[in-house]
């Protein structure tokens, strides 16, 4: 579909200056995106969660680390909307605080994966000499058993990093690097695929013929054209990074229990799940909602940004 319905009725009355709305690629994509109700719902949910996590501490002023044994294991009430844990710490405050860490892990790990993945995909696709070796390497990385290796790597390198960067920062650097390092391969493959097909296009040929340098062709001509794919991959990789972080933390090998993230909240409260289910339900629901929202959004973005998918 080249013209989206409704917005462009060609002006038949000659002579009258009708202002046509200027349309851009992104404007077009937005129109397309809005049609997908689930994607919009996902975007809305995600904004809500991000705002809640960012602004939460300013509105809900409860210390997530304050221990109050007298108020231990209280079910959700007006005073503690998400209840309290076994030490009487407020679960809502802990979920907000944990959400900040979980979401930033997702974003930073995504950035690492995207930078590495795009660079490798771009070089492999554009420079034929490198293609074979880079893709071999990518395929080998893909065959590594991810979760088990992540677990082992986490447990082995946790202490040295913790000494270097401190308790919280050390764990953050560790988790983010490991997830990023193991997460770039799908992006690299996708980028390579589209670079290979873009390389055959006339505009690249034209650029080569007028004498544009290889570097410029890569950055100025090819990269902007694969932006759409990168954005979709980035969105989905935030979701998978959050999922991986919480899985590691849930197995007790991500963030240490005294640093609340959604995953480690589940880990530290897992023994109370029968007696006081709210301790695990709220963090679990938050993780699930976030990932669900991002995945719905990612699907919508894919449809909106990839014109070939449109019907």
């Amino acid at each position: 579909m080249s013209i989206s319905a409704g917005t462009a009725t060609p002006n038949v009355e000659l002579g009258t200056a009708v202002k046509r709305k200027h349309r851009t690629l992104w404007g077009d994509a937005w129109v397309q995106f809005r049609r997908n109700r689930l994607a919009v719902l996902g975007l809305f949910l995600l904004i809500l969660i991000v705002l809640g996590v960012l602004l939460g501490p300013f509105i809900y002023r409860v210390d997530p680390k304050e221990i109050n044994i007298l108020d231990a294991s209280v079910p959700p009430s007006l005073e503690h909307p998400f209840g309290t844990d076994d030490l009487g710490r407020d679960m809502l405050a802990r979920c907000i605080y944990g959400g900040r860490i979980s979401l930033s892990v997702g974003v930073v790990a995504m950035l690492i994966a995207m930078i590495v993945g795009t660079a490798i995909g771009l070089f492999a696709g554009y420079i034929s000499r490198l293609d074979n070796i880079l893709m071999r390497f990518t395929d080998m990385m893909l065959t590594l058993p991810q979760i088990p290796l992540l677990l082992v790597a986490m447990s082995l390198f946790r202490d040295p990093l913790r000494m270097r960067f401190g308790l919280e920062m050390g764990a953050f650097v560790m988790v983010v690097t490991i997830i990023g390092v193991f997460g770039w391969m799908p992006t690299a493959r996708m980028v390579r695929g589209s670079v290979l097909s873009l390389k055959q296009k006339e505009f690249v040929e034209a650029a080569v013929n007028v004498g544009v340098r290889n570097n410029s062709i890569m950055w100025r001509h090819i990269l902007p054209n694969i932006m759409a794919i990168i954005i979709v991959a980035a969105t989905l990789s935030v979701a998978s990074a959050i999922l991986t972080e919480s899985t590691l933390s849930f197995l007790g090998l991500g963030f240490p229990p005294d640093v609340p993230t959604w995953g480690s909240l589940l880990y530290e409260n897992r023994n109370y799940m029968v007696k006081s289910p709210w301790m695990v339900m709220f963090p679990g629901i938050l993780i699930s909602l976030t990932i669900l929202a991002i995945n719905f959004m990612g699907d919508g973005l894919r449809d909106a940004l990839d014109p070939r998918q449109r019907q």
Partner: protein
Amino acid sequence: MGSYILRRILTAIPTLFFISFVIFALLALSPGDPTGNLPPSLPMEIKQRVREALGMDQPMPVRYVRWLQQFMVNEPLNAIEKATGIQIGNSEDRLRITSWTARGKPVIDLVMERLPQTLWVVGLAYLLSIVIAVPVGVFAAYKQNSTFDSISSVIAVIGFSLPTFFTGVLVIQIFAVWLGWFPSLYNTTLDVTNWDTFVQQVKQMIMPVMVLAFFQIATVSRFARSSSIENLRQDYVRTARSKGLGERMVVMRHVVRNSMIPVVTLIALGIPGIFGGAIVTEQIFAVNGIGQLLIISIQSNDLPVVQTVLMIFAVLVVVFNLIADIAYGILDPRIRYS
């Protein structure tokens, strides 16, 4: 076909070496130490001798080759010997990989004790998910944009968005706590001897299998759907219809067979992944499988066990990659010649 399979096997070998090297290097670089669990009052010289006896003073390449020999030659021989009872070579003198914590028990024995539980749960979940996911995906594709399609698509996205550790917790809450249908923990000492224990075994397996299968159904059905949609648009479908074939024939004989090609690959490639997922499920339901063994040995710094379990996962990945490639070659002759 023969040369195609041979080529695939030849490319699988370097992959296996790469993975084994990553695993070896990861653990060789780690600060863990077999003497760490010995009493601190032990004099340094004795600790040093323990290290030497374990070969820790050798240079890294030597250790890698010896380690590889252990995994690729010695232990498989031991396993075969144990399974068949036939003595091969001088088995008494053959070095064994032993656990650092479980009183020096051979690691293979530890793994063998736990493998059946994992295989049962994982295998059943996988079978169940294929049986459900493929028809759902194909039907959703056939009725594209129908109510069935949109509902199954939404459920699929939910399925792979919900982390297994949360669905596990949720399922325990609903079926074990509220409804009281199934036990919340896996009874690992249960021996299936009669009908009652069999029922008990089935009951305790339902929840872990359900959790694992739900995730897998979501992934496979989405894939089956998009692959079928692609095939439904092909010219050969139109040809089949126009020569008067019934819809049933068109879909079952032509579309399904062709669209299953990538699905088979996905299924084969997903098997190692589901073992990874089983780590979480085993942890939630306290199933004593190899996933739990991995977690325990990581926590107790039992490197030989960790290495063995990782190697088993790695070999699984490579073997199933190979199976996927070969299956692809059989199903789609075009692949063989490219």
